[in-house]
């Protein structure tokens, strides 16, 4: 399992906890439009939970880029490799 897969699994775990959906399966194209629970306020909780899980801080410019799960994983992979 490479870094990407490990990160994807950890991101999935965070999503399931925040949205309280244990069976949620993440795909790179999944967006807020596909998950009814992914409201604006839940988005704040999600980002905070991801920051805690990966011990990192997102930048404003990165947050603006986030549209899909794929964007989140890509940014975390980039930040983790620095």
């Amino acid at each position, binding site marked *: 399992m490479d870094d990407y897969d490990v990160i994807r699994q950890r991101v999935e775990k965070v999503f399931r906890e925040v949205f309280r959906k244990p069976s949620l399966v993440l795909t790179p194209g999944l967006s807020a439009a596909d998950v009814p629970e992914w409201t604006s306020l839940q*988005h*704040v909780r999600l980002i905070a939970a991801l920051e805690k899980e990966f011990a990192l801080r997102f930048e404003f410019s990165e*947050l603006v880029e986030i549209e899909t799960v794929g964007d989140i994983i890509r940014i975390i992979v980039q930040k983790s490799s620095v």
Partner: protein
Amino acid sequence: MKFREIRVGELDDLIASGWYRRQKIIPITPSRAISQAINPNAYPNDIALLMAVAEDDSLAGFAGILPARLYLARAEPERFFYNSCWWIHPDKGRRVSMPLFYRMLEITRGRMVLADMTEHTEKIVDGTGRFRVQKPAEGIYLWFRGGAGTFLSRKSGYRPWVKLLASPVDLAINGMQYLRLQGMQIAAGSDTFTVRPASVEQQDVNEFIDRMCAGNPLTRRASDLKWILRTPWLIPCKLCKKGTHQYPFSWKVESFVQHVLRIDHNQLLVGVAVVNFRDGIAKVPYLYVLQGSEEPVAQALLFWLLRQPVHGLLTWNQYLLRELKRLNLPAVIKRKVYKRTAYNLVLSEVLDTSFELQDGDGDSVFT
């Protein structure tokens, strides 16, 4: 999605722009914009408003920043910022809540206070791990007269017939309450504390306010009150123009009146209060009291309120709460209310954990 930042010096232009006129939901009302444009604690280059604008040119979300001053002992006042609003469109704004929030933190360099959050927002703010959330302050929402007419009229969009329909109920309640309250005032004995209208422009009032603020890092000084009292954010509906704009926060009301009161005892100024009447409910955004006079000042103010054309009081002020409890004021309706405050961890380095916010701190004093 585009993110726009509006500086204090650009607020006038924003409310005069074609883009603003085209919006169904507006990010700031003209009265708030005018007030913030002359905020004595702000510089023209300070960012006052962050907006996320969707592809169709409408608002997806916005957040407001209100510069204020922090008065620390033996130091020049420092800057900090209240978050004055944070609104997200339920559909268009799903992705913008966090960028707006983070950008606010960047702009304020983490020196931000959230002074009046809902329970839901409190949980989320706490979850970011960047704020110290204070234990919710317990206050009271109390009706000492029947106000069903005003209440129902507000709920129905200020239709006058609703008020008329509820008037017999209010009349009956008020008859009984009159007798109960009258008895209480007689029992309280003669009043040696006088409550009179005043102005923050009066030198003794002005100096008293600033003197009583010592040791309270966030409490508004007299210079702030001059500005606040000149530029309330609420418009009484009689003055409202028919328009298509909507604003998600307090804006139009049936009535809004501000009072500055001085409380004297044997010709000595012992208290100054800023009191707002909004749609029949009194609020006391600021109460400055000489040490040792807290109880009689609170009592004098409460008895003054009972003689005013209001039917209730909403307060978190500790002196008023203590006095209300002691007097056991007969109430038509009484319920507990909570005020939730959080401040950024950066600010927590300079703020004592025991500091107390007054009811008007944040932007509540304007509304």
